[in-house]
């Protein structure tokens, strides 16, 4: 691509925003997603377009199904999610491949190499092969927009969902995009065709044949489509790459010959062979798994290196220079002995109060995905497992079954995570006569990804008022008889409720409800301060890791000296409840 000249129609967009723009220009009517870094901003950008029906779905499986339905009714639809979300949506994905589309259907997977905000760094390119669908990988925001438009055309031309795969660096890097006009499309409506849309075995066998024929047709098209291109340069070195890796190669080896793959499933085998024959040394540069490398080797093409795909973490221009032996001097090492600065739960976070109680009770905490996962860090250390969205309940129940005890384990899960995939395991606990104590940490938002709405907030993605799912009524309807709602700032009551739940031989659900402190900044209570006369220096107020409490004890001193930073303190008084000396008091009224 060429860089567009700066003008009013050229703007700086992130990869996520550019995908949203591409969808808008392609005439998308329905967009769905579940929040997850680094994909969240796609739907946040889409909801700004009044022409598009954009929703936060309860989870990624639902999101994909809604988008598929829209497609079958003839509308163009886009569904976006983070990489692990595609695991949740993989069931409809693989069969949607058989069903195909009416209006174009594009599935965006935002992978997270390096795990900036994820529990694994799986390489979702494998899903394209598993589901037998074409896959596009853009290298910058302009391409993200163009590829999104192309993906809809490919989807309709080949009757298939299309996977648009990006990574964190693509999603959150910004570059200049030239804006285009929206193409208005009117959906055809649903046309009955059961051989295509009802996947019983007899129909599915026939559809599978069509899927294989489609992939053959796509492989042939891949040889000549403009998404793949050879950039002729120095014949001494040739590099095959895709996505953001292409930009790193151009940065460190601008003279190399490059086969840039925009369509990475199916691969153009003829083009790859032709390129390989024209260069002396051939490299494949890719992030995470040797996805391209293995397929290229399987063609009988010889690479000039042993497997070099690092498999771990994300690439950078520095690491690509090393892989290509681009002759840059070795980079300097970071300075030694720098204290780490990990993210922490905010001052006044309700999660901290509840996790502090769990720490005091010394119970096994089966954790889940959300801000509260930060509670695993010292000094709180109040989490023992965290696997995937909704896993806390099932894992707790499994421990309970294996040990025969339910008096020393709790499951903790956020409100949105519970709605996403915690409801089914709660039914399991009730149905199979478990006695698990489940704590729903209800902060009335999806906090970690930047405060999105969900069915429990009573607001849609567009900010409109809607039915608010009452979590207490829901869990009662599932069959939980012991349900309580508590303010986690009240540590005494929280503790009593949890202890009662642990003693009980039937399930208990405690909803610890306290709105995310970042949403209610204006409602701060009076800040606290340390009364140095009363302080005994025990350090209890440092055991819950509040960023507003500052340990200023000189090196070698046993007696702790602490200070509360008034600008950060929101007055939750969790530290006050930990202090046995009564030394934490309200700041005098400054107003």
């Amino acid at each position, binding site marked *: 691509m060429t860089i567009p000249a700066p003008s009013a129609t050229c703007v*700086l967009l992130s990869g996520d925003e550019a995908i949203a723009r591409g969808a808008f220009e392609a005439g998308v009517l329905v967009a769905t997603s579940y929040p997850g870094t680094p994909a969240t901003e796609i739907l946040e950008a889409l909801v700004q377009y009044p022409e598009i029906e954009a929703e936060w779905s309860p989870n990624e499986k639902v999101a994909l199904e809604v988008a598929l339905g829209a497609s079958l009714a003839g509308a163009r639809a886009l569904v976006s999610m983070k990489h692990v979300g595609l695991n949740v949506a993989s069931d409809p994905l693989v069969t949607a491949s058989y069903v195909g589309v009416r209006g174009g259907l594009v599935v965006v997977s935002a992978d997270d190499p390096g795990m900036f905000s994820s529990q694994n760094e799986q390489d979702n390119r494998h899903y394209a092969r598993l589901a037998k669908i074409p896959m596009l990988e853009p290298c910058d925001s302009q391409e993200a927009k163009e590829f999104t438009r192309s993906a809809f055309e490919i989807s309709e031309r080949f009757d298939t969902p299309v996977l648009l795969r990006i990574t964190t660096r693509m999603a959150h890097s910004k570059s200049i995009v030239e804006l285009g006009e929206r193409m208005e499309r009117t959906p055809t409506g649903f046309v009955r065709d059961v051989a295509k849309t009802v996947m019983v075995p007899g129909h599915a066998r026939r559809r599978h044949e069509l899927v294989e024929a489609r992939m053959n047709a796509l492989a042939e098209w891949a040889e000549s489509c403009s998404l793949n291109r050879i950039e002729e340069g120095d014949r001494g070195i040739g590099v095959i790459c895709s996505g953001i890796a292409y930009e790193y190669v151009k940065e460190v080896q601008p003279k190399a010959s490059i086969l840039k793959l925009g369509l990475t499933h199916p691969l153009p085998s003829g083009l790859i062979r032709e390129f390989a024959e024209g260069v002396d040394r051939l490299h494949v540069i890719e992030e995470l798994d040797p996805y391209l490398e293995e397929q290229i080797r399987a063609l009988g093409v010889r690479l000039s290196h042993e497997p070099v795909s690092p498999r771990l973490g994300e690439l950078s221009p520095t690491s690509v220079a090393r892989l290509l032996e681009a002759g840059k001097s070795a980079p300097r090492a970071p300075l030694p002995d720098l204290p780490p*600065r990990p993210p922490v739960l905010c001052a006044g976070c309700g999660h901290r109060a509840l996790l502090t109680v769990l720490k005091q009770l010394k119970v096994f905490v089966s954790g889940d995905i959300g801000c509260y996962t930060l509670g695993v860090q010292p000094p709180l250390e109040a989490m023992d497992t965290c696997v995937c969205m909704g896993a806390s309940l099932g894992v707790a129940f499994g421990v309970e079954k294996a040990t025969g005890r339910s008096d020393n384990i709790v499951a903790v899960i956020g409100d949105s995570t519970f709605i996403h995939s915690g409801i089914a395991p709660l039914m399991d606990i009730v149905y199979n006569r478990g006695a698990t104590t489940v704590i729903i940490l209800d902060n009335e938002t999806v906090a970690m990804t930047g405060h999105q709405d969900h069915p429990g907030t009573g607001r849609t993605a567009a900010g409109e008022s809607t039915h608010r799912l009452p979590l207490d009524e829901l869990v009662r309807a599932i069959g939980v008889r012991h349900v309580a709602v508590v303010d986690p700032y009240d540590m005494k009551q929280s503790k009593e409720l949890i202890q009662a739940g642990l003693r009980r031989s039937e399930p208990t659900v405690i909803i610890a409800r306290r709105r995310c402190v970042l949403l209610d900044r204006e409602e701060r209570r009076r800040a606290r301060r340390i009364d140095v006369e009363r302080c005994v220096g025990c350090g209890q107020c440092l055991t819950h890791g509040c960023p507003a409490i500052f340990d200023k004890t000189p090196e070698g001193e046993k007696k702790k000296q602490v200070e509360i930073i008034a600008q950060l303190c929101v007055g939750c008084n969790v530290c006050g409840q930990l202090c046995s000396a009564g030394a934490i008091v309200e700041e005098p009224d400054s107003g």
Partner: protein
Amino acid sequence: MGEVTNIAIAGVGGQGIILASDVLAQAAICAGYDVKKNEVHGMAQRGGAVVSEVRFGRRVRSPLIPDGEVDVLLALEMLEGLRHLHRLRPEGVVIADELRIRPAVRPPGAPGYPEDVVDRLRSLGHRLVLIPAAELARGAGNARAANTVLMGAMSRHLQLPEDAWQRSLRMCLRPSLLEVNMRAFGLGRQTQDI
């Protein structure tokens, strides 16, 4: 500076790092350059170490700055500047707020906040410009505009016309905050290198 100018902006989540990098990127666009930038979203922002990188020039490829090619390191907090010091070119410059923010938690065995942080910012031989940003921002009318003061100080070291900065500030800031930030930027731009 090479064909592409590279700026790394480092600090603590919540300090306004992303806004600062947006202003810089927009100023470079206003000056007619190709621009790429990267930033961190999500969990890492919760009071953790945050860095955003901006690159501008005739044609920018990677959104990440290759190690050893940072021209200007803008540190909104000194320890966070230290974390990226090794990525500067030998002739690169460090512009740092005098602010020290201790990490909220100190894991067992982790070193404490380096008391000699200023000396260490000079330890690789780079030019260091220290700015009392909060004090200057208070002078402009709002201590929270410290990041804009620092942008002003940084603007002295970048080949972008003043008009491009002014236009960018107008595009990136809410109208109610514009006046204070324009003043803050001006105070930063007037600072002298020591």
